[in-house]
């Protein structure tokens, strides 16, 4: 691709912003337990070279990170949060829970006594010895991606979770990441391993007690070994001025299944990238989720799924609801290599626009080199059905409630993909509250 002068200017600006971001965080020191592993200086140089991603980069065509890049962030500080706030944020009430405040584990707020046998979990800063060789390689590895480089260069902490072989874990595990605002840049790195034949329900919740700007930048590596199964649910309900960028890299071995779910409600700009390598026969990668995008918000859900061997499956369904002045993006790609015959992969993105000024972009893609596969993709974008709206109103239901009911109906059945009924209820309530809020404002407006 020829670099146009306009692009060059953008890239230079993005680099400059990376440099000033790095300068503001110059007093950064890596967590003690990771200092010998983290290539802090190299990563910082890589970040400044790459800069913040710009729309020149195809993956960022629809998502402009300039508001993030222009913010002057600080290093994370200690924060105080009450147990009640955690209770509000949680998806699964009776899960084993680790609570991170501003990127640091709070033992007081965490609940680990019911941690089942066969599961080990610890903050990354104290768990270097738990990492496998390939995980260490990922930690030390070079990257040319600006956000990943920043993540390494200014790593706050993260967690390491391992499920041993042959463990059917019935107690769900939940991580709560809470920020108290104050322009902090919080960088999280996580390594998850589900052993051979093991199962786990894991959820992550991102919340805030503040309406100030801050940045949660997370990179997660997941390995699901042969015949293992992982449900991984992410609820992003950050403060309205927050930035949230997340990459989830998953590798699936033979017969492994992955069920990823993402709920995007909060943040000013949030992007979640699921990068999945379906590396073993009969492995299946299932992704689902929704976003509720209101005024001044931008939600981007991206997926890249690589099928490298015969007989693998993938399924994706994302439903996005956009209210007045919001913008949602879905970008998904199935990349099927020549040897990946009999890949069975379906992708669907459905968008619902609640107002004329609401915007949804959708880019589902197939890149297929094998000739005997069953792959499909589809995208629809529409408004609420006027006749359905009238049907509800004709029964005495006011317009904003009717709109909320139809919108809820649009996403609600997605929640059936969640294995945990508490999580389903919590998300259902969150959807309900969001609709209540956004319908009453859209009716006034």
């Amino acid at each position, binding site marked *: 691709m020829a670099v146009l002068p306009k692009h060059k200017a953008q890239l230079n600006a993005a680099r400059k912003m990376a440099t000033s971001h790095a300068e503001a965080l110059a007093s950064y020191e890596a967590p003690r337990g990771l200092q010998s592993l983290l290539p802090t200086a190299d990563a910082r140089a890589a970040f400044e070279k790459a800069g913040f991603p710009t729309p020149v980069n195809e993956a960022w065509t629809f998502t402009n990170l300039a508001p993030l890049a222009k913010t002057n962030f600080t290093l994370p500080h200690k924060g105080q949060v009450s147990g009640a706030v955690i209770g509000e944020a949680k998806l699964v009430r009776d899960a084993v829970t680790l609570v991170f405040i501003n990127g640091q584990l709070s033992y007081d707020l965490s609940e680990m006594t019911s941690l089942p046998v066969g599961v080990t979990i610890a903050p990354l800063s104290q768990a270097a010895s738990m990492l496998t060789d390939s995980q260490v390689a990922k930690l030390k590895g070079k990257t040319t991606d600006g956000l990943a480089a920043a993540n390494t260069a200014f790593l706050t902490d993260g967690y390491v979770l391992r499920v041993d072989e042959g463990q059917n874990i019935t107690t769900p595990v939940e991580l709560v990441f809470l920020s108290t605002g104050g322009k902090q840049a919080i960088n999280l790195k996580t390594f998850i391993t589900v052993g051979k034949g093991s199962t786990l329900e894991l959820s992550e919740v991102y919340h805030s007690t503040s309406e100030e700007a801050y940045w949660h930048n997370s990179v997660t590596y997941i390995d699901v070994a042969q015949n293992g199964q992982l449900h991984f649910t992410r609820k992003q309900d950050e403060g309205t001025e927050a930035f949230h960028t997340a990459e989830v890299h998953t590798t699936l071995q033979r017969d492994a299944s992955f069920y990823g779910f993402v709920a995007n409600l909060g943040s000013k700009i949030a992007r979640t990238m699921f990068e999945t390598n379906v590396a073993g026969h009969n492995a299946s990668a299932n992704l689902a989720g929704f976003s509720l995008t209101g005024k001044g918000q931008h939600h981007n859900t991206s997926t890249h799924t690589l099928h490298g061997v015969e007989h693998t499956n993938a399924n994706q369904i994302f439903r996005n609801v956009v209210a007045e002045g919001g913008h949602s993006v879905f970008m998904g790609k199935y990349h099927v290599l020549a040897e990946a015959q009999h890949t069975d992969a379906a992708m669907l993105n459905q968008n619902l626009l609640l107002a004329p000024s609401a915007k949804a972009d959708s880019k589902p893609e197939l890149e297929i080199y094998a000739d005997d596969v069953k792959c499909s993709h589809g995208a629809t974008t529409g408004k609420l*059905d*006027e*006749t*359905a709206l*009238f*049907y*509800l*109103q*004709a*029964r*005495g*239901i*006011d*317009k904003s*409630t*009717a709109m909320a*009911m*139809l919108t*809820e*109906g*649009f*996403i*609600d*059945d997605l929640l059936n993909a969640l294995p945990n009924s508490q999580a389903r209820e919590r998300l259902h309530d969150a959807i309900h509250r969001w609709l209540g809020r956004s319908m009453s404002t859209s009716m006034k407006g």
Partner: protein
Amino acid sequence: MTELLNIENLHARVEEKEILKGLSLKVNAGEVHAIMGPNGSGKSTLASVLAGKPGYEITEGSVNFQGEDLLEFEAEERAQKGIFLGFQYPVEIPGVNSMYFLRTALNAQRKARGEEELDGIDFMDFIQDKLELLDMNTEFLKRPVNVGFSGGEKKRHETLQMCALNPTLALLDETDSGLDIDALQIVSRGVNAMRGEGKAIVLITHYQRLLDYIEPDFVHVLKDGQIIKSGDKTLATELEKEGYSGLTNETTAA
């Protein structure tokens, strides 16, 4: 007799096309009226205009319901005031559970009338005998609104909603169309159950056989946007035999 509804010289258009062309009709409390007429004559349009469906322009005339100008109100307000429209084509609403829908509707109306809202358990008690009356079971209510319902089930569902919401004025737009005799009897049972003092029913139908089960006080012929003839129930039998083609506008001449 208390007058419930008074439509005078109503003209309505949709997308620049005039459909109701000076329609007048009076309905008193306690009465059952049947409206018959050829396809495309404006029967559903009349029902939609009365129920407050958006998209119609009223260019002339008035509609008075219990002493108020009905046309002033939003669709939901009209429902709350006691108007019920049984849809000719009930709408399928994927993702919205029938029970939740009906309870929300009932509670919206109760709230508007200053009555206590019903919780899930009270609602089940409340709806039980209405389900029985219509030979329906609770499984119905667990499904999304009208999704995958057969034609007859949809009409029964409309009737159930009517029984639950207990309107003052029910406008039933071809609730009998496409029903077999059993279903027709069941639906008629529902309609007759809500018949009563202070209430009125307007049945839009193509078939005289409905009127064997629900006996009307008046039968009207709607043609080309006007009521051109009114009579008692014998008119329906005549119409079914002779058709509408011989009829000309008698009311405007009068």
